[in-house]
Structure formats: C-alpha cells, structure tokens
C-alpha cells in the first residue's frame, strides 16, 4: 500500500538498504541478499533514486511489497519477509 513519508519513517525496519544511484543488476542482487538474511516477518527498507530500479524491485519482489512511497526523486519500498 502507498503510505506517506511520515508513515513510512515510523515503521520498525530490521534493515535499511540505501541503493541511491544504483542501477540493474545491483539493486536486485543486494535486495535479494538482504531478504535472505532477514527473519520471517521482518521489514526491510529499500531506498532508490532511479524510477526504473524502483519499478524493477516492485515487480521482482511483488509478493513481498508491504508499503511504498515516493518523495521527490527518492523511492522507498518496504519489503516484508
């Protein structure tokens, strides 16, 4: 679901991945590694500055997307293990 930046910042996340400036394949590789490390139910915050990368992550981890928001050129996606 789409949340506001404030709501997203309140979420209790176990990992934060700052992937600003990263382009495929790096975001997918690093996000998958973080998911493998996370325990069941944990939230991971993924920060991206490329719309295409955000769309990729949104599609590739569709079943794990818990929340997302866009703030200027920052795309934040919260994934749930």
């Amino acid at each position, binding site marked *: 679901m789409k949340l506001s930046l404030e709501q997203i910042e309140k979420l209790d996340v176990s990992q934060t991945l700052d992937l600003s*400036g*990263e*382009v495929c*394949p*790096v975001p*997918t*590789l*690093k996000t*998958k*590694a973080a998911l*493998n490390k996370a325990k069941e139910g944990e939230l991971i915050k993924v920060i991206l500055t490329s719309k295409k990368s955000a769309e990729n992550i949104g599609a590739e981890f569709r079943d794990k997307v818990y929340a997302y928001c866009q703030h200027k050129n920052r795309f934040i996606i919260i994934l749930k293990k």
Partner: protein
Amino acid sequence: MIGIILHSGEWDRIYHAFSLASMYSALETKVTVFLTYWSIESLANGKMNCGDEKKNEVFKKAMEEGKIKELTEIVELGKAFGNMEIIACSGSMEIFRYELSDLPEWVDRIAGLGEFLMNTEKVIFI
C-alpha cells in the same frame, strides 16, 4: 544447471556475462561460467577494452557515474548466493599458457569442456 560460455575478451561482454551469472545465482539457479580463449586473456591482464573507442567511452563514463561496477563486485555479489562457479577451460589455459594464479582469485578451478557440458542443461554463449 545453466552454463555460460564466455569466449569474448571484450569488457562489456565480460561484464554482461557475470551480471547474468550473478542474477541466476541470486534467483537460486545453479550457474557455471566457463571461461575460454579471449576472456581468459582479458581477465589475466586486467585490461578493460570493449573493442572500440566509442564503447570504451560509454563504459568508462558509466563506471565514473557508478552505474557500472568493478567486475569483482558483481562477481562477489553473485557468488555470495552460493549457486555460482567459475571455471577456466583447460584447453584455452594451455593455448594461452596461463596458470590459475594468473587469473582473478574468484576463478574457482580449471576443468575440461566435457565435464562442464555434462552438468549443464542449457548453454549461453557470449
């Protein structure tokens, strides 16, 4: 198992082959990169050449912008998932007179084409 035969010594193709292999590994698919001929020579001397000046400029600019990484980073990201092996073709190693120690340390071992193909259902040639 997916096999990627990396024949080309051109750096854009080498980078592409390992991006592909790392992604397969991340997606839990066993993958082996089989280095042959010119890829071995490029990796041994570490010279990054895409084969023509225009490509080299595009590649260099993308690296400066952080959009293309050092090859080692992509390889290590992929290997961390545990589904990726990198083998140097024994025939090519003899033709070019290289030893395993001449190649990056992430090259796992030297083996023959037969053993590589025996374990592989699908082969991608780059």
